[in-house]
Protein backbone atom coordinates (compact mmCIF):
# COMPACT_ATOMS: atom_id res chain seq x y z
CA UNK A 1 0.00 0.00 0.00
CA UNK A 2 2.73 2.43 1.08
CA UNK A 3 4.85 1.42 -1.91
CA UNK A 4 1.93 2.05 -4.28
CA UNK A 5 1.52 5.56 -2.85
CA UNK A 6 5.25 6.12 -3.27
CA UNK A 7 5.08 4.93 -6.88
CA UNK A 8 2.28 7.40 -7.58
CA UNK A 9 4.33 10.17 -6.01
CA UNK A 10 7.34 9.26 -8.18
CA UNK A 11 5.13 9.63 -11.27
CA UNK A 12 4.78 13.34 -10.46
CA UNK A 13 7.29 14.45 -7.87
CA UNK A 14 10.45 12.66 -8.89
CA UNK A 15 12.30 15.97 -8.93
CA UNK A 16 11.91 16.42 -5.20
CA UNK A 17 14.42 14.78 -2.86
CA UNK A 18 13.22 11.60 -1.15
CA UNK A 19 15.94 10.38 1.21
CA UNK A 20 16.31 6.89 2.55
CA UNK A 21 18.66 5.76 5.32
CA UNK A 22 22.31 5.73 4.21
CA UNK A 23 24.52 2.82 5.17
CA UNK A 24 25.39 -0.74 4.20
CA UNK A 25 22.83 -3.23 2.83
CA UNK A 26 23.36 -6.91 2.10
CA UNK A 27 22.01 -8.02 -1.25
CA UNK A 28 21.33 -11.76 -1.38
CA UNK A 29 23.96 -13.72 0.50
CA UNK A 30 27.26 -11.88 0.04
CA UNK A 31 30.62 -13.31 1.14
CA UNK A 32 34.16 -11.99 1.46
CA UNK A 33 34.70 -11.93 -2.29
CA UNK A 34 31.35 -10.40 -3.28
CA UNK A 35 31.37 -7.10 -5.15
CA UNK A 36 30.96 -3.82 -3.29
CA UNK A 37 28.90 -1.20 -5.08
CA UNK A 38 27.82 2.33 -4.27
CA UNK A 39 24.63 4.27 -4.91
CA UNK A 40 22.93 7.43 -3.61
CA UNK A 41 20.21 7.62 -0.96
CA UNK A 42 17.26 8.52 -3.21
CA UNK A 43 14.44 6.16 -2.22
CA UNK A 44 13.47 5.27 -5.79
CA UNK A 45 17.08 4.59 -6.81
CA UNK A 46 17.77 2.38 -3.79
CA UNK A 47 14.58 0.41 -4.31
CA UNK A 48 15.28 -0.09 -8.03
CA UNK A 49 18.87 -1.14 -7.37
CA UNK A 50 17.92 -3.67 -4.69
CA UNK A 51 14.99 -5.10 -6.66
CA UNK A 52 17.05 -5.43 -9.85
CA UNK A 53 20.03 -7.09 -8.15
CA UNK A 54 17.80 -9.50 -6.24
CA UNK A 55 15.90 -10.37 -9.42
CA UNK A 56 19.19 -11.05 -11.22
CA UNK A 57 20.45 -13.24 -8.37
CA UNK A 58 23.45 -11.06 -7.49
CA UNK A 59 25.10 -11.34 -4.07
CA UNK A 60 26.68 -8.02 -3.18
CA UNK A 61 27.41 -5.39 -0.57
CA UNK A 62 25.53 -2.19 -1.34
CA UNK A 63 26.83 1.08 0.09
CA UNK A 64 24.14 3.77 0.18
CA UNK A 65 25.99 7.06 0.31
CA UNK A 66 24.21 10.17 1.56
CA UNK A 67 23.23 12.21 -1.52
CA UNK A 68 20.61 14.41 0.14
CA UNK A 69 17.87 12.12 -1.12
CA UNK A 70 18.64 13.01 -4.74
CA UNK A 71 19.30 10.54 -7.58
CA UNK A 72 22.93 9.76 -8.42
CA UNK A 73 23.39 11.79 -11.61
CA UNK A 74 21.67 14.97 -10.41
CA UNK A 75 23.29 14.71 -6.99
CA UNK A 76 26.73 14.27 -8.57
CA UNK A 77 26.13 17.27 -10.84
CA UNK A 78 24.79 19.34 -7.97
CA UNK A 79 27.62 18.58 -5.55
CA UNK A 80 25.71 16.23 -3.23
CA UNK A 81 27.23 12.95 -4.42
CA UNK A 82 30.93 13.63 -4.55
CA UNK A 83 34.30 12.09 -3.86
CA UNK A 84 33.69 13.06 -0.23
CA UNK A 85 30.47 11.01 -0.15
CA UNK A 86 32.23 7.92 -1.51
CA UNK A 87 35.20 8.29 0.84
CA UNK A 88 32.86 8.73 3.78
CA UNK A 89 30.60 5.77 3.02
CA UNK A 90 33.54 3.39 2.51
CA UNK A 91 35.09 4.42 5.82
CA UNK A 92 32.02 4.63 8.04
CA UNK A 93 30.30 1.38 7.09
CA UNK A 94 33.31 -0.75 8.00
CA UNK A 95 32.96 -2.66 4.73
CA UNK A 96 36.71 -3.35 4.71
CA UNK A 97 36.12 -5.84 7.54
CA UNK A 98 33.57 -7.75 5.45
CA UNK A 99 35.51 -8.34 2.26
CA UNK A 100 39.02 -9.46 1.38
CA UNK A 101 39.33 -7.37 -1.79
CA UNK A 102 39.55 -3.58 -2.12
CA UNK A 103 37.51 -2.94 -5.26
CA UNK A 104 34.50 -0.65 -5.23
CA UNK A 105 32.09 -0.22 -8.13
CA UNK A 106 30.78 3.31 -8.58
CA UNK A 107 27.74 4.22 -10.67
CA UNK A 108 28.99 5.43 -14.03
CA UNK A 109 26.66 8.41 -13.79
CA UNK A 110 28.36 9.60 -10.61
CA UNK A 111 31.48 10.45 -12.60
CA UNK A 112 30.44 14.08 -13.00
CA UNK A 113 30.86 14.49 -9.23
CA UNK A 114 33.18 11.67 -8.18
CA UNK A 115 36.86 11.79 -9.05
CA UNK A 116 38.36 8.35 -9.72
CA UNK A 117 41.92 9.34 -8.76
CA UNK A 118 40.91 11.09 -5.55
CA UNK A 119 38.81 8.12 -4.35
CA UNK A 120 41.75 5.84 -5.00
CA UNK A 121 44.21 8.05 -3.18
CA UNK A 122 42.01 8.86 -0.21
CA UNK A 123 40.61 5.37 0.49
CA UNK A 124 43.22 2.98 -0.83
CA UNK A 125 40.36 1.19 -2.59
CA UNK A 126 40.43 0.63 -6.32
CA UNK A 127 37.38 2.25 -7.86
CA UNK A 128 35.66 1.11 -11.05
CA UNK A 129 32.88 2.78 -12.93
CA UNK A 130 30.08 0.28 -13.44
CA UNK A 131 27.30 0.39 -16.02
CA UNK A 132 25.07 3.45 -16.49
CA UNK A 133 21.91 1.49 -15.71
CA UNK A 134 21.58 -1.05 -12.91
CA UNK A 135 19.78 -3.48 -15.25
CA UNK A 136 23.15 -4.10 -16.93
CA UNK A 137 24.98 -4.79 -13.66
CA UNK A 138 24.52 -8.57 -13.77
CA UNK A 139 25.96 -8.76 -17.28
CA UNK A 140 28.86 -6.50 -16.27
CA UNK A 141 29.82 -8.44 -13.15
CA UNK A 142 29.42 -11.86 -14.82
CA UNK A 143 31.61 -10.80 -17.75
CA UNK A 144 34.47 -10.54 -15.23
CA UNK A 145 35.83 -7.54 -17.12
CA UNK A 146 37.10 -4.56 -15.28
CA UNK A 147 35.70 -1.96 -17.61
CA UNK A 148 32.14 -1.91 -18.81
CA UNK A 149 31.09 -2.88 -22.32
CA UNK A 150 30.53 0.12 -24.54
CA UNK A 151 26.78 -0.42 -24.79
CA UNK A 152 26.47 -0.58 -21.01
CA UNK A 153 27.98 2.88 -20.67
CA UNK A 154 25.26 4.58 -22.67
CA UNK A 155 22.33 6.28 -21.03
CA UNK A 156 19.05 5.26 -22.58
CA UNK A 157 15.63 6.86 -22.52
CA UNK A 158 13.29 3.90 -22.88
CA UNK A 159 9.53 4.10 -23.21
CA UNK A 160 8.62 3.43 -19.52
CA UNK A 161 11.10 6.08 -18.43
CA UNK A 162 9.85 8.53 -21.04
CA UNK A 163 6.31 8.03 -19.78
CA UNK A 164 7.36 8.65 -16.17
CA UNK A 165 9.39 11.74 -17.08
CA UNK A 166 6.50 13.00 -19.22
CA UNK A 167 4.08 12.89 -16.28
CA UNK A 168 6.69 14.55 -14.08
CA UNK A 169 7.24 17.28 -16.66
CA UNK A 170 3.49 17.84 -16.97
CA UNK A 171 3.01 18.05 -13.22
CA UNK A 172 5.87 20.46 -12.66
CA UNK A 173 5.22 22.89 -15.51
CA UNK A 174 1.56 22.94 -14.47
CA UNK A 175 2.64 23.76 -10.93
CA UNK A 176 4.89 26.59 -12.07
CA UNK A 177 2.42 28.02 -14.60
CA UNK A 178 -0.74 27.59 -12.50
CA UNK A 179 -0.59 31.03 -10.88
CA UNK A 180 0.12 33.06 -14.07
CA UNK A 181 -2.62 31.11 -15.87
CA UNK A 182 -5.15 31.73 -13.10
CA UNK A 183 -4.34 35.45 -13.19
CA UNK A 184 -4.66 35.46 -16.99
CA UNK A 185 -8.08 33.80 -16.60
CA UNK A 186 -9.48 37.12 -15.37
CA UNK A 187 -9.19 38.33 -18.96
CA UNK A 188 -9.72 35.08 -20.86
CA UNK A 189 -12.43 33.14 -19.04
CA UNK A 190 -11.57 29.49 -18.34
CA UNK A 191 -8.02 29.80 -19.68
CA UNK A 192 -6.34 28.05 -16.77
CA UNK A 193 -8.51 24.96 -16.46
CA UNK A 194 -8.48 24.45 -20.21
CA UNK A 195 -4.74 25.02 -20.52
CA UNK A 196 -3.55 22.79 -17.67
CA UNK A 197 -4.90 19.55 -19.25
CA UNK A 198 -3.45 20.65 -22.63
CA UNK A 199 -0.11 21.34 -20.98
CA UNK A 200 -0.15 17.98 -19.22
CA UNK A 201 -1.16 16.02 -22.33
CA UNK A 202 1.44 17.76 -24.53
CA UNK A 203 4.11 17.14 -21.88
CA UNK A 204 3.48 13.41 -21.88
CA UNK A 205 3.16 13.24 -25.67
CA UNK A 206 6.29 15.30 -26.37
CA UNK A 207 8.35 13.07 -24.09
CA UNK A 208 6.93 9.75 -25.23
CA UNK A 209 7.07 10.66 -28.94
CA UNK A 210 10.37 12.55 -28.83
CA UNK A 211 12.28 10.14 -31.08
CA UNK A 212 9.51 10.04 -33.67
CA UNK A 213 8.69 13.75 -33.96
CA UNK A 214 10.34 15.52 -36.91
CA UNK A 215 12.81 18.40 -36.44
CA UNK A 216 15.63 19.16 -34.05
CA UNK A 217 15.30 18.61 -30.32
CA UNK A 218 13.66 21.56 -28.59
CA UNK A 219 11.21 24.09 -30.00
CA UNK A 220 11.22 22.42 -33.44
CA UNK A 221 9.92 19.10 -32.14
CA UNK A 222 7.49 21.02 -29.92
CA UNK A 223 6.11 22.89 -32.92
CA UNK A 224 5.78 19.64 -34.88
CA UNK A 225 3.71 18.15 -32.07
CA UNK A 226 1.77 21.41 -31.83
CA UNK A 227 0.83 21.34 -35.50
CA UNK A 228 -0.38 17.74 -35.17
CA UNK A 229 -2.37 18.47 -32.01
CA UNK A 230 -3.85 21.77 -33.28
CA UNK A 231 -4.86 20.12 -36.57
CA UNK A 232 -6.58 17.28 -34.69
CA UNK A 233 -8.34 19.80 -32.46
CA UNK A 234 -9.46 21.90 -35.44
CA UNK A 235 -10.77 18.83 -37.24
CA UNK A 236 -12.75 17.59 -34.23
CA UNK A 237 -13.98 21.09 -33.32
CA UNK A 238 -15.20 21.76 -36.82
CA UNK A 239 -16.94 18.45 -37.46
CA UNK A 240 -18.26 17.41 -34.05
CA UNK A 241 -18.43 20.60 -31.97
CA UNK A 242 -20.00 23.91 -32.72
CA UNK A 243 -17.01 26.19 -32.22
CA UNK A 244 -17.02 29.70 -33.70
CA UNK A 245 -14.20 30.30 -36.20
CA UNK A 246 -12.37 32.99 -34.16
CA UNK A 247 -12.28 30.69 -31.14
CA UNK A 248 -11.04 27.83 -33.32
CA UNK A 249 -8.14 29.94 -34.63
CA UNK A 250 -7.36 31.30 -31.17
CA UNK A 251 -7.23 27.91 -29.48
CA UNK A 252 -5.25 26.34 -32.33
CA UNK A 253 -2.64 29.09 -32.02
CA UNK A 254 -2.60 28.65 -28.22
CA UNK A 255 -2.03 24.89 -28.55
CA UNK A 256 0.85 25.60 -30.92
CA UNK A 257 2.40 28.07 -28.47
CA UNK A 258 2.01 25.74 -25.48
CA UNK A 259 3.50 22.88 -27.47
CA UNK A 260 6.52 24.96 -28.51
CA UNK A 261 7.06 25.82 -24.85
CA UNK A 262 6.79 22.18 -23.76
CA UNK A 263 9.16 21.17 -26.56
CA UNK A 264 11.66 23.68 -25.22
CA UNK A 265 11.29 22.51 -21.64
CA UNK A 266 11.23 18.74 -22.22
CA UNK A 267 14.99 18.15 -22.79
CA UNK A 268 15.85 19.18 -19.22
CA UNK A 269 13.81 16.16 -18.10
CA UNK A 270 15.69 13.74 -20.28
CA UNK A 271 19.04 12.07 -19.77
CA UNK A 272 20.05 12.74 -23.37
CA UNK A 273 19.89 16.48 -23.95
CA UNK A 274 20.98 19.46 -22.02
CA UNK A 275 19.12 22.66 -21.25
CA UNK A 276 20.60 25.30 -23.50
CA UNK A 277 18.44 28.11 -24.82
CA UNK A 278 20.28 28.61 -28.11
CA UNK A 279 20.42 24.92 -28.81
CA UNK A 280 16.76 24.30 -28.06
CA UNK A 281 15.35 27.43 -29.71
CA UNK A 282 17.66 27.93 -32.69
CA UNK A 283 19.19 24.47 -32.98
CA UNK A 284 22.75 25.91 -32.67
CA UNK A 285 25.31 23.80 -30.78
CA UNK A 286 27.10 25.81 -28.12
CA UNK A 287 28.94 23.01 -26.34
CA UNK A 288 32.47 22.52 -27.52
CA UNK A 289 34.32 19.90 -25.55
CA UNK A 290 37.86 19.39 -26.78
CA UNK A 291 40.96 17.37 -25.88
CA UNK A 292 44.36 19.04 -25.80
CA UNK A 293 46.37 16.26 -27.53
CA UNK A 294 49.71 17.02 -25.85
CA UNK A 295 48.17 16.45 -22.45
CA UNK A 296 46.30 13.20 -23.20
CA UNK A 297 48.02 10.25 -21.55
CA UNK A 298 45.68 7.63 -22.98
CA UNK A 299 44.22 6.60 -19.60
CA UNK A 300 40.81 5.82 -21.18
CA UNK A 301 38.83 7.41 -18.36
CA UNK A 302 37.09 10.06 -20.49
CA UNK A 303 35.75 7.31 -22.72
CA UNK A 304 34.75 5.11 -19.77
CA UNK A 305 32.78 7.83 -17.99
CA UNK A 306 31.10 9.36 -21.05
CA UNK A 307 27.44 8.30 -21.09
CA UNK A 308 26.86 9.37 -24.70
CA UNK A 309 30.00 8.09 -26.44
CA UNK A 310 31.64 11.38 -27.42
CA UNK A 311 35.23 10.10 -27.44
CA UNK A 312 37.10 7.69 -29.68
CA UNK A 313 40.58 6.23 -29.52
CA UNK A 314 42.97 7.04 -32.31
CA UNK A 315 45.22 3.98 -32.67
CA UNK A 316 47.81 5.96 -34.67
CA UNK A 317 48.41 8.75 -32.16
CA UNK A 318 47.45 6.51 -29.20
CA UNK A 319 45.37 9.34 -27.86
CA UNK A 320 41.69 10.05 -27.41
CA UNK A 321 39.79 12.40 -29.67
CA UNK A 322 36.38 14.02 -29.73
CA UNK A 323 34.53 11.97 -32.30
CA UNK A 324 30.88 12.74 -31.67
CA UNK A 325 30.52 16.29 -30.44
CA UNK A 326 26.81 16.45 -31.29
CA UNK A 327 25.99 13.91 -28.59
CA UNK A 328 27.80 15.82 -25.81
CA UNK A 329 25.49 17.13 -23.14
CA UNK A 330 28.19 18.83 -21.09
CA UNK A 331 27.72 16.69 -17.98
CA UNK A 332 31.36 17.31 -17.06
CA UNK A 333 32.26 13.71 -16.14
CA UNK A 334 35.27 13.64 -18.49
CA UNK A 335 36.55 16.98 -17.22
CA UNK A 336 36.15 15.90 -13.59
CA UNK A 337 38.04 12.66 -14.14
CA UNK A 338 40.78 13.64 -16.58
CA UNK A 339 44.03 13.37 -14.56
CA UNK A 340 45.97 15.83 -16.72
CA UNK A 341 43.33 18.50 -17.33
CA UNK A 342 43.46 17.66 -21.01
CA UNK A 343 39.74 18.21 -21.58
CA UNK A 344 38.23 21.66 -21.88
CA UNK A 345 34.76 22.87 -22.60
CA UNK A 346 34.62 26.13 -24.50
CA UNK A 347 31.07 27.32 -24.61
CA UNK A 348 30.75 29.18 -27.86
CA UNK A 349 29.49 32.43 -26.53
CA UNK A 350 29.03 35.47 -28.71
CA UNK A 351 29.70 33.57 -31.95
CA UNK A 352 26.61 35.06 -33.46
CA UNK A 353 25.61 38.71 -33.18
CA UNK A 354 22.07 38.48 -34.54
CA UNK A 355 19.38 40.08 -32.33
CA UNK A 356 17.91 36.68 -31.34
CA UNK A 357 21.27 35.30 -30.20
CA UNK A 358 22.10 38.49 -28.35
CA UNK A 359 18.76 38.37 -26.56
CA UNK A 360 19.23 34.71 -25.58
CA UNK A 361 22.81 35.33 -24.40
CA UNK A 362 21.59 38.29 -22.37
CA UNK A 363 18.81 36.33 -20.69
CA UNK A 364 21.20 33.42 -19.99
CA UNK A 365 23.67 35.81 -18.37
CA UNK A 366 20.92 37.40 -16.29
CA UNK A 367 19.93 33.95 -15.07
CA UNK A 368 23.52 33.61 -13.85
CA UNK A 369 24.27 30.72 -16.12
CA UNK A 370 27.95 30.51 -15.38
CA UNK A 371 29.19 26.97 -15.37
CA UNK A 372 32.31 26.46 -13.35
CA UNK A 373 33.77 23.09 -13.93
CA UNK A 374 35.66 21.58 -11.05
CA UNK A 375 39.09 20.70 -12.26
CA UNK A 376 40.76 17.81 -10.51
CA UNK A 377 44.28 18.14 -9.21
CA UNK A 378 46.66 16.90 -11.88
CA UNK A 379 48.33 13.72 -10.80
CA UNK A 380 50.89 11.60 -12.46
CA UNK A 381 49.76 8.27 -13.80
CA UNK A 382 51.07 5.64 -16.09
CA UNK A 383 49.34 4.10 -19.03
CA UNK A 384 46.73 1.56 -18.05
CA UNK A 385 46.74 2.54 -14.40
CA UNK A 386 42.98 2.79 -14.42
CA UNK A 387 42.91 -0.97 -14.75
CA UNK A 388 41.84 -1.35 -18.35
CA UNK A 389 42.44 -4.68 -19.97
Amino acid at each position, binding site marked *: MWNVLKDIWFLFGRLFPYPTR*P*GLRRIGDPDRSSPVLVTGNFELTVRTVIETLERDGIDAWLLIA*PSKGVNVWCAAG*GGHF*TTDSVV*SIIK*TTGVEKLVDHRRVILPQLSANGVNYWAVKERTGWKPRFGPAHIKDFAAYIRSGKQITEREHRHVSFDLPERLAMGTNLGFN*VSLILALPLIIASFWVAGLWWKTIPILFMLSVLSTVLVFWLPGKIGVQKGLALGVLTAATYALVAQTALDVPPWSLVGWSAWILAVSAFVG*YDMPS*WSPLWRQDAKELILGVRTTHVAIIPERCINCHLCDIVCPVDVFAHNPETKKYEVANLDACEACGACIENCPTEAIVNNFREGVCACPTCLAIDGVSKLAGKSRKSRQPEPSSCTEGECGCD
Partner: protein
Amino acid sequence: MSTLVYMKLLEQTPAKYDRGMRVITLGRVDRIKREIAAGWVEPGHSVLELGCGTGSLARLMTERGADVTGIDISEPMLAVARDAAPAATVMHLTATEIERLGESCFDRIVATLSLSELSEDELDYVLHASARLLKPGGLLVVADEVVPIPLRQRMLFWLIRYPLAALTFLLTQNTTHALRGFERRLEDAGYRTVSTKPYLLGTLALIVSERA
Protein backbone atom coordinates in the same frame (compact mmCIF):
# COMPACT_ATOMS: atom_id res chain seq x y z
CA MET B 1 13.35 25.72 -17.96
CA SER B 2 11.15 24.20 -15.23
CA THR B 3 14.09 22.27 -13.81
CA LEU B 4 16.12 25.48 -13.87
CA VAL B 5 13.45 27.24 -11.81
CA TYR B 6 13.72 24.59 -9.10
CA MET B 7 17.50 24.54 -9.28
CA LYS B 8 17.67 28.30 -8.77
CA LEU B 9 15.18 28.04 -5.93
CA LEU B 10 17.15 25.34 -4.16
CA GLU B 11 20.59 26.66 -4.96
CA GLN B 12 22.72 27.06 -1.85
CA THR B 13 24.95 30.02 -1.31
CA PRO B 14 27.05 30.73 1.78
CA ALA B 15 25.10 33.94 2.52
CA LYS B 16 21.79 32.13 2.18
CA TYR B 17 23.01 29.38 4.49
CA ASP B 18 24.07 31.82 7.20
CA ARG B 19 20.71 33.56 6.93
CA GLY B 20 18.93 30.21 7.22
CA MET B 21 20.82 29.23 10.36
CA ARG B 22 19.99 32.59 11.95
CA VAL B 23 16.28 32.18 11.22
CA ILE B 24 16.02 28.57 12.40
CA THR B 25 17.76 29.38 15.69
CA LEU B 26 16.03 32.76 16.00
CA GLY B 27 19.42 34.42 16.10
CA ARG B 28 20.76 32.19 18.88
CA VAL B 29 23.51 30.72 16.70
CA ASP B 30 25.57 33.93 16.82
CA ARG B 31 25.21 34.19 20.59
CA ILE B 32 26.22 30.54 21.06
CA LYS B 33 29.31 31.06 18.92
CA ARG B 34 30.36 34.04 21.03
CA GLU B 35 29.79 31.94 24.16
CA ILE B 36 31.91 29.10 22.85
CA ALA B 37 34.78 31.41 21.93
CA ALA B 38 34.68 33.29 25.24
CA GLY B 39 33.79 30.50 27.63
CA TRP B 40 35.34 27.31 26.29
CA VAL B 41 38.41 28.35 24.35
CA GLU B 42 41.58 29.70 25.97
CA PRO B 43 44.43 31.61 24.32
CA GLY B 44 47.02 29.19 23.00
CA HIS B 45 44.55 26.35 22.65
CA SER B 46 44.77 24.14 19.63
CA VAL B 47 41.21 23.93 18.25
CA LEU B 48 39.64 21.85 15.50
CA GLU B 49 36.34 23.05 14.07
CA LEU B 50 34.24 20.44 12.28
CA GLY B 51 32.17 22.09 9.54
CA CYS B 52 33.55 25.61 9.85
CA GLY B 53 31.13 26.94 7.22
CA THR B 54 31.72 30.62 6.55
CA GLY B 55 34.27 30.87 9.34
CA SER B 56 32.45 33.11 11.82
CA LEU B 57 33.31 30.96 14.85
CA ALA B 58 36.84 30.28 13.57
CA ARG B 59 37.37 34.04 13.46
CA LEU B 60 36.10 34.54 17.02
CA MET B 61 38.39 31.79 18.28
CA THR B 62 41.50 33.09 16.48
CA GLU B 63 40.76 36.54 17.88
CA ARG B 64 40.81 34.96 21.33
CA GLY B 65 44.30 33.69 20.57
CA ALA B 66 43.58 30.08 19.74
CA ASP B 67 45.30 28.13 16.99
CA VAL B 68 42.32 27.09 14.84
CA THR B 69 42.02 24.43 12.14
CA GLY B 70 38.68 24.50 10.34
CA ILE B 71 37.43 21.77 8.01
CA ASP B 72 34.43 21.74 5.66
CA ILE B 73 33.40 20.00 2.45
CA SER B 74 31.80 22.97 0.72
CA GLU B 75 34.26 24.89 -1.46
CA PRO B 76 32.07 28.03 -1.69
CA MET B 77 31.86 28.10 2.12
CA LEU B 78 35.61 27.53 2.48
CA ALA B 79 36.31 30.43 0.13
CA VAL B 80 34.28 32.74 2.38
CA ALA B 81 35.90 31.28 5.51
CA ARG B 82 39.42 31.93 4.20
CA ASP B 83 38.58 35.62 3.94
CA ALA B 84 36.61 35.76 7.18
CA ALA B 85 39.17 34.02 9.36
CA PRO B 86 42.60 34.58 7.75
CA ALA B 87 44.43 33.53 10.92
CA ALA B 88 42.81 30.09 10.91
CA THR B 89 43.95 27.10 8.85
CA VAL B 90 40.96 26.24 6.73
CA MET B 91 40.88 23.12 4.56
CA HIS B 92 38.68 20.82 2.50
CA LEU B 93 38.38 17.60 4.48
CA THR B 94 35.45 15.36 5.35
CA ALA B 95 34.75 14.82 9.04
CA THR B 96 35.35 11.11 8.47
CA GLU B 97 38.98 11.77 7.54
CA ILE B 98 40.03 13.76 10.62
CA GLU B 99 42.37 11.01 11.84
CA ARG B 100 44.72 12.36 9.14
CA LEU B 101 45.24 15.40 11.34
CA GLY B 102 47.12 13.41 13.96
CA GLU B 103 46.50 11.93 17.39
CA SER B 104 45.93 13.59 20.79
CA CYS B 105 46.72 16.95 19.28
CA PHE B 106 43.73 19.20 20.01
CA ASP B 107 42.59 20.89 23.22
CA ARG B 108 39.14 21.52 21.82
CA ILE B 109 37.03 20.12 19.02
CA VAL B 110 34.03 22.33 18.25
CA ALA B 111 31.05 21.78 15.96
CA THR B 112 28.06 24.10 15.58
CA LEU B 113 25.06 22.86 13.61
CA SER B 114 27.29 20.53 11.62
CA LEU B 115 27.19 17.11 13.31
CA SER B 116 23.46 16.92 12.56
CA GLU B 117 24.33 17.06 8.83
CA LEU B 118 25.97 13.63 9.12
CA SER B 119 24.29 10.27 8.73
CA GLU B 120 24.11 8.07 11.84
CA ASP B 121 27.04 5.90 10.76
CA GLU B 122 29.11 8.98 9.99
CA LEU B 123 28.24 10.56 13.33
CA ASP B 124 29.39 7.52 15.31
CA TYR B 125 32.57 7.33 13.28
CA VAL B 126 33.35 11.01 13.79
CA LEU B 127 32.69 10.86 17.56
CA HIS B 128 35.09 7.93 17.95
CA ALA B 129 37.70 9.56 15.72
CA SER B 130 37.45 12.89 17.52
CA ALA B 131 37.94 11.20 20.90
CA ARG B 132 41.30 9.92 19.63
CA LEU B 133 42.17 13.39 18.33
CA LEU B 134 41.66 15.17 21.65
CA LYS B 135 44.47 15.58 24.17
CA PRO B 136 43.75 13.97 27.55
CA GLY B 137 41.30 16.28 29.29
CA GLY B 138 40.39 17.92 25.98
CA LEU B 139 36.78 18.95 25.37
CA LEU B 140 34.29 18.33 22.60
CA VAL B 141 32.01 21.37 22.30
CA VAL B 142 28.85 20.77 20.27
CA ALA B 143 26.02 23.21 19.60
CA ASP B 144 23.17 21.59 17.73
CA GLU B 145 19.51 20.74 17.62
CA VAL B 146 19.06 17.79 19.92
CA VAL B 147 15.84 15.79 20.17
CA PRO B 148 15.03 15.39 23.89
CA ILE B 149 14.18 11.92 25.18
CA PRO B 150 11.26 12.60 27.63
CA LEU B 151 7.97 12.50 25.73
CA ARG B 152 6.59 15.87 26.83
CA GLN B 153 9.78 17.68 26.01
CA ARG B 154 9.98 15.83 22.72
CA MET B 155 6.47 16.96 21.76
CA LEU B 156 7.38 20.55 22.66
CA PHE B 157 10.53 20.18 20.56
CA TRP B 158 8.67 19.23 17.39
CA LEU B 159 5.98 21.85 18.11
CA ILE B 160 8.60 24.59 18.06
CA ARG B 161 10.88 23.12 15.45
CA TYR B 162 8.45 22.29 12.63
CA PRO B 163 7.10 25.84 12.20
CA LEU B 164 10.61 27.26 12.48
CA ALA B 165 11.96 24.80 9.93
CA ALA B 166 9.07 25.58 7.55
CA LEU B 167 9.65 29.32 7.92
CA THR B 168 13.38 28.90 7.38
CA PHE B 169 12.81 26.81 4.27
CA LEU B 170 10.37 29.37 2.85
CA LEU B 171 12.77 32.23 3.45
CA THR B 172 16.11 30.64 2.63
CA GLN B 173 15.50 27.11 1.22
CA ASN B 174 17.71 25.72 3.95
CA THR B 175 16.94 23.18 6.58
CA THR B 176 18.71 21.39 9.39
CA HIS B 177 18.38 17.95 10.90
CA ALA B 178 18.24 17.19 14.60
CA LEU B 179 20.53 14.87 16.50
CA ARG B 180 18.80 11.84 18.02
CA GLY B 181 20.14 9.87 20.96
CA PHE B 182 23.19 12.10 21.02
CA GLU B 183 24.09 11.60 24.70
CA ARG B 184 24.12 7.82 24.29
CA ARG B 185 26.33 8.12 21.21
CA LEU B 186 28.72 10.37 23.14
CA GLU B 187 28.94 7.80 25.91
CA ASP B 188 29.57 4.99 23.42
CA ALA B 189 32.43 6.99 21.95
CA GLY B 190 34.01 7.39 25.39
CA TYR B 191 32.88 10.87 26.34
CA ARG B 192 31.61 12.16 29.67
CA THR B 193 29.24 15.13 29.50
CA VAL B 194 30.58 18.10 31.45
CA SER B 195 27.80 20.60 30.86
CA THR B 196 24.61 20.96 28.86
CA LYS B 197 23.00 24.33 28.28
CA PRO B 198 19.61 24.49 26.59
CA TYR B 199 18.44 27.28 24.29
CA LEU B 200 15.05 28.04 22.74
CA LEU B 201 13.09 25.94 25.24
CA GLY B 202 15.48 23.05 24.87
CA THR B 203 15.33 22.72 21.08
CA LEU B 204 18.94 23.81 20.81
CA ALA B 205 21.72 22.77 23.14
CA LEU B 206 25.36 23.52 23.86
CA ILE B 207 26.84 20.22 25.01
CA VAL B 208 30.38 20.08 26.34
CA SER B 209 31.91 16.67 26.94
CA GLU B 210 35.27 15.47 28.07
CA ARG B 211 37.33 12.61 26.74
CA ALA B 212 36.93 10.11 29.58
